[in-house]
């Protein structure tokens, strides 16, 4: 009996770790990108794999803060692309990036409403009108899209009274798609990516509140040269085209 336990104790770590390593010896390039970049970055990754034989681009998307926290805690990564400069500056300050990050795209806020616009929302003024009682959902001020929402409202001198302050654009969009909310403030690219599930209402006021998306190769990259090449691809013509198709603005 004791021998069986001993065998289990020896084998267990082997079993637990065998799933992680990856069997083939091909080169892996690990890219961390903000959630809003998922679509275009998948295309960019495919193009990179097509032109670099034997290279496997592993794309991992998430909230920018989460991504930076992962890099801070030592997660293996070669390239980092965030949805705002504030989060990227944290990575720069910690010496995690290789060189200065470069802005490759911009994004602005738009109003998302359920199909058919049941509450008849036309613009920012409707949202702040207490008589209209529009159920508005925004991002919390702690996250980039919420900070942008506050700047847009502040520039117009209106006070928003949201029924919920979510942690991510995805959560805001979910509330609009399900029809729980009458309107949500999200990025124009999110409205585009949601397709028919929501309608977008342009906000002239939002044009001045622009979110910059920076990208950088990481200091601890396993593949520093490939990382730089991927950054160049994002900043190049193909990257710009793919990003424009997704609704992003040029820097």
């Amino acid at each position, binding site marked *: 009996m004791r021998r069986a*336990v001993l065998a289990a104790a020896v084998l267990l770590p082997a079993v637990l770790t065998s799933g992680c390593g990856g069997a083939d010896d091909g080169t892996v390039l690990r890219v961390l990108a903000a959630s809003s970049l998922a679509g275009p970055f998948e295309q960019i990754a495919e193009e990179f794999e097509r032109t670099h034989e034997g290279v496997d681009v592993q794309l991992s998307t998430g909230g920018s803060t989460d991504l930076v926290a992962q890099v801070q805690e030592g997660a293996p990564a070669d390239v980092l692309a965030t949805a705002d400069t504030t989060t990227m500056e944290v990575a720069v300050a910690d010496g995690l990036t290789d060189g200065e990050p470069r802005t490759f795209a911009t994004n602005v806020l738009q109003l998302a409403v359920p199909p058919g616009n049941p509450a008849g929302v036309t613009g920012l003024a409707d949202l702040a009108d207490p008589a209209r009682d529009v159920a508005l959902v925004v991002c919390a001020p*702690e996250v980039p899209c919420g900070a942008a929402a506050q700047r847009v409202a502040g520039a117009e001198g209106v006070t928003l009274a949201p029924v919920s*302050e*979510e*942690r991510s654009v995805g959560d805001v969009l979910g509330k609009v798609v*399900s*029809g729980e909310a009458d309107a949500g403030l999200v990025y124009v690219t999110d409205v585009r990516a949601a397709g028919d599930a929501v309608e977008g209402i342009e906000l002239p006021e939002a044009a001045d509140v622009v979110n910059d998306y920076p990208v950088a190769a990481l200091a601890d990259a396993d593949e520093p040269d490939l990382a730089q090449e991927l950054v160049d691809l994002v900043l190049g013509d193909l990257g710009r085209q793919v990003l424009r198709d997704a609704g992003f603005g040029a820097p």
Partner: protein
Amino acid sequence: MTPGVPRWLLAPAALGAAFVLLPLVAIVARVPWSDLGALVTSEASRDALLLSLRTSATSTVLCVLLGVPMAAVLARTSFPGQGVVRSLVLLPLVLPPVVGGLALLYTFGRRGLLGETLDVLGVQVAFSTAAVVMAQTFVALPFLVVSLEGALRTAGERYELVAATLGARPTTVLRRVTLPLVLPGLLSGAVLAFARALGEFGATVTFAGSLQGVTRTLPTEIYLLRETDVDGAVALSLVLVVVAVLVIGLATRRRAPLRGPS
């Protein structure tokens, strides 16, 4: 004198305990003790803690009101398809909480199954504290049902049969014999339900939203705070852990030793 356990059991048991306790130690080690007071007494933190305690207590009461009859029916009756029914009502145990939140949304949301009916009745569940309680009750209810059904089955039906032959009616048997007999099981089930409600997060965020003082419970506040203030999030996590440990500790200390039929 208890028979004890074979000695070889101790090593894996210790390994399991270390697996659970080490992460707790790690988070306690990260707590910014010098700023702890300021971090946990901020208005947002206090609102979140009070809301969590209030909603979790309400959810636990609802769990008891709904769960005791469910457990009694599952343990003391037999009907065709009982196994399937049991699996289905226990589903929230294995369902990812976010999916639970979506399911609630599709039921009680504005466009949900009951949405229009509720609307006619003038009930607005969306983005309200009631939605938080519903999400918590949904995920916590199976914990109470499972522990109570187990307790009921362990206790057996002997005393109930005796009471019935002595002329007690079913309600009297339930009140005077069954419930007192399984009170410890009911109590631990309620504690589990409370703890689960306190930690509820996924279904709440999906179904109820997040607004300070209305729907932003402690776990939701921690999730949001981590975005800008990791120290604050860690400090609040400690509060959550302390509250949970206190509740579990108090409840188990008071528990009377179980005297089953012997």
